[in-house]
């Protein structure tokens, strides 16, 4: 652990506001994040197609088309600024030069837009965490690890302005624990294993970034908390469980910042507000704007504290208006105009209230994303000093928040949700203070799924 966060950067939840971050980030072609404006972060991916050497020309053509339509739309929409994210697909990480080639293409289009009409803009590049091709995954050595690090290197050299990842260390345990609703396993994965992998991986990423003068962005607990959110939205898991997992997952994502990450956080990291409260860095968020990529119960509240507003991902298919990425850029641009108009006219608090109040009473997952809940969870985290204790504290605080909300009738929890909340509470209370003790029982239950060496254990 290089930096450690022992106090909140934004101590008062009322200081948590979209567009403003105590530690702004400058990147790319003059894009300034957290300095009083919210910008779109556009995401896209390939439509159904073969992704290999034989079809590479078609792959390139897609990204060229996307680049062209970004330029066109940015001008038409008079965008005040833009972040573009290129999320690599697995084969593009396995072959680092492929990802670098696409990075260079998108970089060129942004450069052109900056030259032609002065667009402040930057390119975030996110290699795929391909380290889990074997089971149990070998997270610290072997070909995938080498390819992944090469991918960071080559993308940085090819024109990335920000590097990020959605890393998967401990997911092999968390997936299983989640399905069984086993809180011991969930906390073990998030609080014991994942932080160790984050520490390993992010020290390397920050080194690459330093040598290329690229901003080390951040990580996302997507593989953990969004998996839980998806499963709950399909009615497979209780919402309260997904909410608690979200809160607990913030700690493993925080480790990136301990290693030197500066933000902006990843769009799909809905734990972003907690990270902002703790570190003061700008965050990317997505909500209703990402309904092309996944459904969620946090469509508005997710926007309450964002510095970038994203659509998560959409295939480059043709809609009636034009290419889908262009249609989504328009949508994001208008949403951002609202944030910025509110900031300009001094009505940002009222607008934030609308975003928050319109969602929080309808879902526990939304409730824990309010500025007040965010502040409480963040406070609980910085009071502790080990990752395990921090994770446990975050989870427990979220249970308290939800229980109180239910009691105050601010949240309408049905009886099954209430039962689960109490079950989760009991399970969390029963967890040992000492992480070594947990390690022993977990090795017994999940030992076949993970390799201790991958976590330096």
């Amino acid at each position, binding site marked *: 652990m290089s930096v450690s966060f022992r106090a909140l950067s934004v101590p008062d939840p009322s200081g948590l506001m979209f567009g403003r971050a105590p530690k702004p980030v400058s990147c790319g072609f003059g894009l300034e994040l957290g300095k009083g404006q919210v910008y779109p972060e556009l995401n896209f991916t390939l439509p159904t*197609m073969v992704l290999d050497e034989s079809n590479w020309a078609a792959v390139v053509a897609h990204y060229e088309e996307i680049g062209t339509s970004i330029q066109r739309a940015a001008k038409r929409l008079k965008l005040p600024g833009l972040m573009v994210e290129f999320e690599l697909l*697995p084969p593009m990480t396995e072959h680092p030069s492929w990802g670098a080639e696409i990075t260079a293409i998108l970089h060129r289009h942004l450069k052109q837009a900056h030259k032609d009409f002065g667009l402040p803009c930057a390119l975030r590049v996110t290699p795929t965490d391909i380290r889990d091709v074997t089971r149990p995954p070998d997270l610290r050595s072997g070909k995938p690890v080498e390819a992944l690090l090469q991918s960071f290197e080559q993308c940085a050299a090819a024109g990335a302005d920000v590097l990020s990842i959605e890393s998967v260390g401990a997911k092999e345990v968390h997936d299983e624990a989640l*399905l069984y*609703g086993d809180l011991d396993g969930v906390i073990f994965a998030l609080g014991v294993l994942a932080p160790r992998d984050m520490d390993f991986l992010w020290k390397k990423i920050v080194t690459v970034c330093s040598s290329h003068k690229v901003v080390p962005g951040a990580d996302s607990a997507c593989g953990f908390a969004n*998996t839980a959110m998806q499963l709950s939205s399909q*009615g*497979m*898991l209780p919402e309260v469980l997904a909410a608690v997992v979200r809160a607990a997952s913030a700690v493993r994502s925080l480790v990136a910042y301990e290693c030197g990450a500066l933000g902006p956080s990843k769009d799909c990291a809905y734990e972003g507000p907690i990270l902002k409260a703790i570190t003061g860095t700008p965050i990317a968020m997505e909500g209703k704007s990402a309904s092309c990529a996944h459904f969620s119960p946090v469509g508005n509240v997710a926007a309450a504290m964002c510095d970038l507003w994203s659509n998560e991902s959409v295939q480059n298919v043709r809609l009636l208006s034009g290419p889908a990425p262009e249609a989504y850029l328009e949508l994001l641009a208008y949403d951002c105009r609202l944030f910025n108009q509110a900031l300009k006219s001094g009505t940002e608090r009222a607008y934030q209230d609308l975003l928050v109040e319109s969602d929080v009473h309808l879902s526990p997952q939304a409730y824990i994303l309010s500025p007040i809940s965010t502040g409480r969870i963040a406070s609980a985290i910085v009071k502790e000093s080990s990752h395990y204790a921090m994770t446990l504290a975050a989870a427990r605080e979220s249970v308290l928040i939800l229980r109180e909300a239910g009691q105050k009738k601010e949240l309408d929890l049905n009886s099954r949700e209430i039962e689960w909340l109490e079950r989760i509470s009991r399970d969390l209370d029963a967890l040992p203070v000492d992480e070594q003790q947990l390690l022993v029982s977990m090795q017994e239950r999940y030992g076949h799924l993970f390799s201790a060496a991958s976590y330096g254990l």
Partner: protein
Amino acid sequence: MKELQELAQSVEQGQVQKVSGLTQQLLDSGVSPQTVLNDGLIAGMTVVGEKMRSGEMYLPEVLQSASAMHGSLKILKPHLVREGAQSRGKIMVGTVKGDMHDIGKNLVSIMLQGAGFDIVDLGLNVPPQKFVEAITAHQPAILGLSAMLTTTMLNMKTTIEAINAAGLRSNVKVIIGGAPVSQKFADEIGADGYARDAVLAVDKVKQLLGVTA
């Protein structure tokens, strides 16, 4: 029979101990293992499937029921084998090459097991050739392919082609699933079926095998 109903209900409630106990009790009292399986375990898991579909049961509860069933199956298996009872059918599942998503596929496995089918799970990131070899080795009635990426879903096609090329296509029905695929895509690549979720996957398998209950 009251005890069989109780067994079914205990499966539904995921009471591991009780289910094993009741199983033993029923066998001891001379009820055929086939009846215990069908009218107790599978009957219970059918309700579980319905409740999952209607949103009345969460996955951990379903898995708890599945555990209870497994405990009972351990007791039943030797009896069933002895009586030469037939499996309802063997299903092989796997996530196609390049794809590391397996939660969906795992759920499908679990629900199929709950419905009384035997499962061979090849895991994830499975190359076409491995499917071909496993079909030869295990002779499943149905192969279920899973893919979650728009760039890996075409590997379902490649896999079906490999099965064709190996001359095995007429031995096995192929069904597919995963967020980006659809009935239309299934038709295009010549699969025999598609299902939107794990509960419908069970329906589809039953339909293809002509199982009625």
